[in-house]
């Protein structure tokens, strides 16, 4: 009942806090949080309509819903030099890798749908670089960079995109389906919303291990990445509910790049402020500038900390922008109301972070140049490696369909039937 009461309509609050706030005030639970981006006129209109919930109200709703949660004040938000350079390197890797993918796609080295991450690097690097190897990441069809941030070597990802046996999925998965059990990248889901329940299941496992299997030190956290389009899909809501209900160690990371292919977020959703769905389900909801890796990292730190401490899930809406079309096949003719592309290009997360690093004397130009050079070499090497790697042998066609393939594609002598001379007699016979 407490929950219901907290969400009852309250008197309209003053509108004061729709203006930018200093990030590090005690009034904000999530220090990187901002709610005043989206400069487009359309948004301003919607925002006026929907700002009946102030952050004060939001806080009260959150506080009521997770009243047993004690939020620790976030401390030491500054990056160490090593951390800063690690994050910078990761962002550069994401950008250079994706640019290379575009080149390789046009040269016919990779095929199908290739969705690039350019512009959104602050989200992947800001979140994933805070994870441990045991923590899990569940991604979408735009998954190359999430895999890279999580530690999957660039050559393994590139080789996968080339459809080679040395790829992280032996050429079987492809661009939209990156998996790595070693680095706990749990996919690459090509359908909207599909990854969210799977991510919630990974988080469920952490809790189960701790509570049922008595693995007291299991504090693994799961990040579920998805876009604004997914935030209108039922699986998202179903999992917000269960994650909050069972206090699962998961962070729902919405990469709101404002467009689902050619569908504007503002045209697809009744309330464009996705973060608000958190409090509606009894978990904190946070909006953050997804073009600012420092702010993303601050919010991520708090959210991951909450999850690790067993305090439950968080919904984080990162407002970001993709600098390329939905996929390399997208003519991308609809997105540019009011010079939108130029405005976001001016806020390139890498340029911004570089500027910050130099201004705050965390790094100098030469150090950053060295990183850029190193990454270019890494990506070049990845391409050479992928190019030189062998294509899958035909015996691979029937492998990995089952963990126990008895009865499927395996003859009585234990050999795969594709080794049988009759293999090519008709594909039905393999």
């Amino acid at each position: 009942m407490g929950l219901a009461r907290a969400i009852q309509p309250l008197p309209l609050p003053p509108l004061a806090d729709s203006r930018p706030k200093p990030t590090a005030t005690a009034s904000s639970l999530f220090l990187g949080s901002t709610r005043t981006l989206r400069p487009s006129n359309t948004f301003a209109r919607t925002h006026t309509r929907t700002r009946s919930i102030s952050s004060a109200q939001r806080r009260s709703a959150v506080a009521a819903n997770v009243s047993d949660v004690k939020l620790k004040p976030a401390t030491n938000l500054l990056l160490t030099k090593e951390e800063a350079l690690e994050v910078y390197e990761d962002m550069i890797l994401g950008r250079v890798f994706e640019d290379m993918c575009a080149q390789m796609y046009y040269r016919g080295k990779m095929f199908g749908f290739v969705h690039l991450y350019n512009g959104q690097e602050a989200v992947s690097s800001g979140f994933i670089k805070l994870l441990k190897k045991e923590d899990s990441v569940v991604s979408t069809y735009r998954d190359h960079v999430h895999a890279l941030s999580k530690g999957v070597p660039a050559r393994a990802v590139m080789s996968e995109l080339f459809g080679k046996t040395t790829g992280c999925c032996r050429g079987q998965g492809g661009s939209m389906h990156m998996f790595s059990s070693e680095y706990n990248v749990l996919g690459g889901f090509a359908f909207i919303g599909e990854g969210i329940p799977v991510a919630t299941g990974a988080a469920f496992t952490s809790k189960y291990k701790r509570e049922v299997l008595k693995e007291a030190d299991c504090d693994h956290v799961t990040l579920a990445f998805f876009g604004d389009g997914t935030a209108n899909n039922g699986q998202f809501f179903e999992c917000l509910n269960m994650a909050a209900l069972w206090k699962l160690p998961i962070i729902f990371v919405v990469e709101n790049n404002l467009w689902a292919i050619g569908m504007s977020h503002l045209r697809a959703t009744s309330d464009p402020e996705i973060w608000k769905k958190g409090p509606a389900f009894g978990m904190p909801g946070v909006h953050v500038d997804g073009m600012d890796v420092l702010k993303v990292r601050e919010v991520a730190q708090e959210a991951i900390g909450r999850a690790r401490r067993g305090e439950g899930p968080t919904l984080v809406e990162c407002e970001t922008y993709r600098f390329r079309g939905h996929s390399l096949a997208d003519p991308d003719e609809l997105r540019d109301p009011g010079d939108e592309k130029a405005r976001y290009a001016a806020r390139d997360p890498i340029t911004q972070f570089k500027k910050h690093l130099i201004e705050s004397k965390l790094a100098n130009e030469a150090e950053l140049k060295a990183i850029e050079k190193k990454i270019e070499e890494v990506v070049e090497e990845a391409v050479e490696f992928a190019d030189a790697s062998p294509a899958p042998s035909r015996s691979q066609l029937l492998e990995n369909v089952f963990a126990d393939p008895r009865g499927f594609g395996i003859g009585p002598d234990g050999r795969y039937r594709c080794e049988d001379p009759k293999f090519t007699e008709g594909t039905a016979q393999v």
Partner: protein
Amino acid sequence: MLGILRQKVGGATGLSSQGLGNHMLRLRPVTSALRNYSSATKEMTVRDALNSALDEEMAADPNVFVMGEEVGEYQGAYKITKGLLDKYGPERVVDTPITEAGFAGIGVGAAYHGLRPVIEFMTFNFSMQAIDHIINSAAKSNYMSAGKINVPIVFRGPNGPAAGVGAQHSQCYGGWYGSVPGLKVLVPYSSEDARGLLKSAIRDPDPVVFLENELLYGESFPVSAEVLDSSFCLPIGKAKIEREGKDVTITAFSKMVGYALKAAEILEKEGINAEVINLRSIRPLDRATINASVRKTNRLVTVEEGFPQHGIGAEICASVVEDSFGYLDAPVERIAGADVPTPYAANLERMAFPQIEDIVRAAKRVCYRSAPISATAS
């Protein structure tokens, strides 16, 4: 409608006597001459055929509307709905959020009350998120309501393997939907099929699953003046004999019809005269045409891109075994996609789906010709 005429003749021939097969042979040059002749008249892509069918049905009936992802402002993910938004407005060309379960169900609810929704799935793979409504709401309502609530809805979109898109975006749903009572399942190949079948589907009082093929959208086919007429419809449940032959029957649908026709050309050079049946409809399945053809040729090869087990080929084979067992001179050959999720790597992907050579080899096998076994994996 030539196809249908020919098919009726073919049916009668096959069932009555083998002798008339020769008569069919003599018709063949006429057929190919016709094909050449019509290509000289007008060509139309499958995309334009679908687009014009939608356009005409929307113009003719204000109850028809289109709903789906990117159908409006983006003009369709594959441009099938191009121009419709401008013509009919956002109330009839409805862009939805990415909520297949939601909008498929909304379509069913609208159809309950007499509207005629055309629900576009960006690809049929995404229909899996809406399959509850396709099967439970759309297909079963007429039955559950004792015939009081029919559901005149069309679920359409590209189906079947695409190129290089991996396991989740590349598979055929013909067998899945083909097994559901209450659904009609259509599988156009050519522009004539696309126009005639889509118009019939929209006018049909029952739920129709309309499986297009992304790789055919850009292909051009000759179309006659009759096909271009706004009243043109094709009967649901009727196959078309695309090519007459006497030695072996090849059944196929969608993209595989083109492969089967190419295989038939190759076979012809080697003295095998193949009859190619374009199924057009998977449910109802035109058992009469298939069986008539098999009774004439005495040999059958089925071709599909879907998974082999419990597939279209299995159903056709059962039908022929039931109705024409005594006429078979060779075991039926079934060519299907491999029994694996679609691989990404190009060479594996090619191996996973039927190729023209596979059809040629199978046809030769059923005709007791030797087929050299290729050792290369493409």
